[in-house]
């Protein structure tokens, strides 16, 4: 089997997470998807700066 095909077959789909804000707002997706979306919500709605680590700490696997 060519190496590239082996790599595709062997890769797992990215894990999905949900992260909820205290205000009830939530977003779902991979870590790379939810981090910027939550950071934008935190800044625009709550004037908060949230780090990637803080988002990951709040995220729950779906």
């Amino acid at each position, binding site marked *: 089997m060519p190496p590239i095909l082996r790599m595709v077959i062997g890769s797992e789909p990215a894990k999905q997470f949900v992260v909820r804000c*205290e*205000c*009830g*707002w939530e977003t779902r997706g991979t870590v790379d998807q939810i981090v910027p979306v939550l950071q934008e919500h935190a800044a*625009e*709605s*709550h*004037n*908060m700066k949230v780090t990637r680590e803080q988002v990951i700490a709040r995220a729950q696997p779906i």
Partner: protein
Amino acid sequence: MEVFVLRMKAGRPELAGPCGPDPWYIEVAAEDDPVVVVSRLSRNLMGEPILVHSTSWRRARGAVVLSFVVVNSEDQAPHLAGIPISRVDLARSGALSAAQTIAAAQVLEHGLRHLAWLSREDPVVMAVLNEDWKQVLADYRPEPFRNLM
């Protein structure tokens, strides 16, 4: 900061903020002016407010929480669902002791009483609130800004 966004609908005030029935929490840095921050975020999310005013403060959530009321116009931010406001008793402290608990509805009740006070005392507030608001606030016993503890 804890913000209660108010909007009049058919002669009745309702809560219509970005967090639905819950208070809207906003963080403020030490160097920021709280009124400026609340005004800016309100404007960005819902359009220009009619009035932004701080009505009380208390220690909660590991910090000093400033409570604000934001008054929007009747047709503002229609995408935000409105929840009618009910009257509740205030959380009263003793002469030398704090209230045991303070619910958000009690902070809002005090905020509306504070607004009632302003609507009779403050020329700016008198000028920006319409007759519907003055009529509603006439039912609230006026109270000045205070520490809800």
